[in-house]
């Protein structure tokens, strides 16, 4: 266990050192390191794991976005899959009906989700806690039902043959090729989440989470930041949706956006560490991998997931991210104390 902790400690130290040289350096390095992942996976295992890597990148976008609104801004939303669905369906529809390229459809899908994010966020201005959860649950489920009953949105058959993105003659139609796209998107998403959350905006989010009155008195426009958090998370969800829709085989169906998906997302951020900057990322990776490894126990798998969620909330409310943080903080504290005693002696 300590070994794992110290690895994380090492990693975070290295990242800090690299960032000191240039703030983009760790990102570029990480991107370069992750770029040949499909080839490595293909050589070590098989092509299925490339598909899984694609899935992880999309889930990272989703859970990082959810963590912003839920973990950092403290708004209890359970309608996130609705925004994901809106992003997916609008991007898919635009490229199917108007024949526009992915590069136009995808941003429009993100924008559509962002607009929907305002709608989902509006209740947050008046409501808190459980009421907000109910309102967002209703909105998310309404989106799914709208998709399920409207033939234009795919209805029962779903939207078929959504074209894969292309650049010139290069087509993102295999999972290896698509990986480059989703990896870039996920890296940009993570990078942006870091810059947002480590800036005044992120601090304002946390202040709103901790105490709305105190935040307002200290000059934080609570309404604005709540809505901003919802919109940012919606943009993330929209991006994830668009990428999911255009991922081969280019098919979306309303049962990809049910409450089960929402629970999986919740599990990701709860396990990774709710309100932890790495929480969504750690959660998305671990949950996707565990999910895949337990596929054979299909009758017990949801039970396992639900139980994990309950137990984590009860016994490990800060998730894995929080545990690592605590370890690092303790270590730092011990080091500083030792330093002090050394200086004294």
């Amino acid at each position, binding site marked *: 266990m300590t070994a794992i902790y110290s690895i994380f400690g090492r990693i975070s130290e290295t990242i800090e050192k690299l960032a000191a040289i240039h703030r983009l350096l760790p990102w570029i390095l990480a991107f370069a390191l992750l770029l040949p992942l499909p080839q490595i996976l293909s050589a070590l295992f098989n092509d299925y794991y490339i598909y899984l890597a694609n899935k992880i990148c999309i889930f990272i976008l989703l859970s990082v976005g959810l963590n912003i609104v839920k973990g950092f801004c403290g708004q209890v939303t359970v309608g996130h899959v609705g925004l994901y669905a809106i992003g997916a369906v609008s991007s898919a529809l635009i490229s199917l009906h108007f024949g526009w390229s992915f590069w136009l459809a995808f941003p429009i899908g993100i924008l559509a989700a962002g607009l929907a994010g305002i709608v989902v966020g509006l209740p947050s201005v008046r409501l808190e806690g459980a009421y907000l959860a109910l309102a967002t649950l209703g909105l998310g489920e309404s989106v799914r039902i709208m998709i399920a009953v409207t033939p234009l949105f795919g209805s029962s058959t779903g939207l078929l043959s959504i074209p894969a993105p292309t650049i010139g003659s290069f087509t993102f139609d295999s999972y290896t090729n698509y990986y480059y796209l989703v990896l870039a998107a996920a890296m940009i998403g993570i990078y942006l989440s870091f810059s947002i959350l480590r*800036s*005044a905006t992120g*601090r304002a989010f946390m202040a709103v989470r*901790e*105490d709305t009155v105190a935040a307002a*008195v*200290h*000059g934080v426009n609570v309404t604005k930041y709540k809505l901003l958090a919802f919109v940012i998370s919606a943009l993330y969800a929209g991006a994830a949706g668009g990428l999911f829709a255009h991922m081969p085989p280019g098919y979306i169906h309303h049962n990809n956006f049910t409450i089960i998906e929402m629970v999986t997302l919740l599990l990701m951020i709860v396990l990774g560490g709710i309100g932890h900057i790495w929480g969504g990322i750690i959660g998305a990776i671990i949950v996707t991998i565990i999910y895949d490894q337990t596929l054979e126990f299909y009758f017990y798998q949801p039970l396992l997931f639900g139980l994990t969620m309950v137990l984590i909330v009860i016994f490990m409310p800060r998730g894995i991210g929080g545990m690592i943080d605590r370890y690092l903080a303790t270590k730092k504290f011990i080091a500083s104390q030792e330093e002090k005693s050394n200086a004294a002696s």
Partner: protein
Amino acid sequence: MPLLETVDLSKSFGGLRAISNLNINIEAGSIHGLIGPNGSGKSTFFNLVTGVYQPDPGSKIIFNGHDITKSASHDIGALGIARTFQLLRLFSEMTVLQNLMVGYHTHVPYGFMSTIFNNSAVVKKDAETKSEMMELLELIGMADYADMPASELSGGQRRLVALGRAMAMRPKLLMLDEPAAGLSPVNVDNLLSIVMALKQRFGLTVLIVEHILKVVMETCDTVTVLDYGEKIGEGSPDAVKDDHAVIEAYLGQEMDDDEVRKAFNS
């Protein structure tokens, strides 16, 4: 011209009138005390001025020439009114430094968009803010605890952080809601000296609500006495001390002069 002026300030909760027709002028550069028994409307007054509550129609609050009667809390904060809370309301999951940086929020020199498009400038400016906040922490003697979560501090330290967070707003008017409550006498003196130092350094106007009368008597230039939401006395501490109405409202009638003197000086 007073820095803060309230005209016929009233607030009712249901049928209960918590504040009625209150006219208070707080002169720039002064330390103004607000005293009164429990439930006399002191905290309500704070909440009205900082926009946490909306005053009843007909009220008017003017700060530094701006009518802030209907302004939102965050706008009032941006105009230069900072306050602390009786129950502190620190951002307990955030570190001490982060608490202060939230206080600095209205002065943050970049917008949301630049966090996305010009991150390097943001990082630079955040570093500047950080060192500024560290200076402030030095002033209040909390620099060692900068990276500690606020929830892990002792009561006295938490009060200092709350003060620091309010000061980070670079206010013109600092409103302290029972800053000394629950502190030991040594800590009270420490806190008061810090407040005085801050006042000198930043040219503050200070409004103090306090139960420990000694604090008010020793530091304030002017004292306003509230009872049942109405002003029953105002003047210099010495004048107020001798005002019979005040003593009655505040301490009941059965006290003789010696006991009164004791109460005000302890």
